[in-house]
């Protein structure tokens, strides 16, 4: 019960901190925070496949991008309202992930990666070549925002709510009976059919759900950036999404937000000071992988745990220095000290 309340307190605190950003940060950083949340959502949708189902998708930016392109086309080119364009964008992402999923989910491991990579390249190729619709390299600009979302802080709060709702939904899905079947596929796919599971169907549904959330992120991105181009759907974006998940900690969902924050902050902040920000980012990645091989979230949790253990050890040592009243009282704190074992790494 206390762990549950501690978790709830943590979530409330994180939401409060998130809500405070527009009060303390200049508009540029408020926008950056919006971007971190949007790509955090994309990375979370990837985590449903990567961390829970054991499939690494390398084309998710394409699904994300299809939603962004549909919103851009309907809104900027055809002048349709957001109430049409946004659902249509998400629907577009769902349709594309349905088709891509059908092709990809019969495979696993490396083959799944390669097929999703190819699918992503397909969308990128279309974005480049289907000039009459996508505007090729020029992209589609002039996307409008609803009147009440024009200012950075307005848009940021909308994205914050969107992110929180989607994160809650993804969390529910990951911990539902269906989520358990996905983890079963990740752990031991070969055993699943004998238990009555149609593995292909479960993978397909996971792909579809993941694609839907990537689509939501993509639609939000179109409004955020007000411009989409082939760079939105390119492979580097897909790979970056996977990297965010791995950096933050796969199979945690919320770790994806940390990954997104780390990558986008380093890119946007460090590039202010040096052109060689890629070197800094690369070094950061190496450090994270070296010292927190299961990601930032679990790494930080472990750090806090170690700190606690260290503090309790110091207390114990301190108690030894105190004048001994009786042998039993001097030893008493030992019972409360967590045993200084190394934390298990799986």
């Amino acid at each position, binding site marked *: 019960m206390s762990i549950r309340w501690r978790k709830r307190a943590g979530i409330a605190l994180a939401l409060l901190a998130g809500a405070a950003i527009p009060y303390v940060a200049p508009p540029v950083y408020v926008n950056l925070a919006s971007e971190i949340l949007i790509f955090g959502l994309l990375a979370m949708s990837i985590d449903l496949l990567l961390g829970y189902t054991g499939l690494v998708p390398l084309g998710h930016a394409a699904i994300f991008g299809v939603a962004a392109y549909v919103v851009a086309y309907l809104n900027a080119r055809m002048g349709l309202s957001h109430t049409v364009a946004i659902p249509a964008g998400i629907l577009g992402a769902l349709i594309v992930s349905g088709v891509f999923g059908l092709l990809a989910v019969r495979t696993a491991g490396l083959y799944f990666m390669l097929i999703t990579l190819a699918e992503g390249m397909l969308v990128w190729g279309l974005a480049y070549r289907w000039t009459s619709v996508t505007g090729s390299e020029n992209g589609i600009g002039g996307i409008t925002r609803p009147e009440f979302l024009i200012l950075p802080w307005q848009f940021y709060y909308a994205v914050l709510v969107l992110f929180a709702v989607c994160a809650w939904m993804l969390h*529910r*899905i990951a*911990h*539902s*009976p*269906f*989520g*358990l*079947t996905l*983890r*079963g596929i990740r*752990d*031991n796919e*070969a*055993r*699943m*059919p*004998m*238990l*009555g*599971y*149609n*593995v292909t169907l479960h993978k397909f*549904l996971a792909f579809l*759900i993941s694609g839907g959330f990537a689509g939501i992120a993509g639609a939000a991105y179109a409004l955020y950036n007000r411009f989409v181009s082939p760079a939105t759907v390119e492979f580097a974006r897909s790979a970056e999404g996977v990297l965010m998940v791995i950096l933050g900690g796969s199979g945690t969902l919320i770790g994806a937000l940390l990954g997104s924050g780390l990558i986008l902050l380093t890119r946007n902040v460090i590039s202010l000071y040096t052109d060689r920000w890629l070197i800094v980012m690369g070094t950061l990645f190496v450090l994270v992988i070296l010292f927190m091989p299961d990601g930032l979230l679990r790494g930080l949790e472990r750090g806090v745990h170690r700190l606690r253990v260290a503090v309790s050890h110091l207390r114990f040592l301190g108690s030894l220095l105190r004048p001994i009243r009786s042998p039993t009282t001097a030893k008493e704190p030992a019972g409360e000290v967590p045993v200084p074992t190394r934390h298990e790494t*799986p």
Partner: protein
Amino acid sequence: MQGRADVAVLVLDQVSRDFGGLRAVDRVSLQVARGERRAIIGPNGAGKTTLFNLITGELAVTSGRVFLFGQDVTALPTQRRAALGLGRTYQITRIFPTFTVRENVLLAAMGLQPIKFALHRPLLSNGPIWRRTDEVLERVGLTHRAETPARALSHGEQRQLELAIALAGDPRLLLLDEPGAGLSPVERQLLYALIQSLPRTLTVILIEHDMDLALGLADRVTCLHYGRVIAEDTPDCISKNEMVQQIYLGSG
């Protein structure tokens, strides 16, 4: 044969399986009646596990037909056969290592239930799936380990869990592939007592190397050698069978 087909839980009709040029299972015909305890014995490489894989559909037959509960399932995928009431354990433990023991059994218990597609609600501890899980854990004696990660179990406990996973879906026909593999003699006795205590409504087919155990448990014994059925009889007769003795004593 047709007369018995509606009584028989499993009928194999001239089933064969080739691996390249090797015929691992060679025209095996078999009938197992409802409630029967059948042991399948034979030396290494006799095709026992391959035969199980053909029954479950994890391998396709090269020729022949497989009937489960009177239905031709030769073309059905594994999960459809499981849905008919088929369960199995594996010779090499196939559990879900990062799951807790309870999650392992929960996952197995909901494999045939529509709740496996539920997205919005967690598994409730007072639901039927949860009760079934408790029941199965109790039966195999893992209740006290329910919250332990499966990978932290001892080998013996993992074998118990393996059996629990197979039982959770409430099968009518259970295939046990060397359930005692790698166990100490004492652990093995306990496991066999457990198998012995399974209700007679459940048909059990068992692969076992240990002749004494196999013969003690089974109503009938089938002996495989080089993919062929060379003998099928009651335990008493099979232990006196000359061909079986030759194979097992190494003079053949």
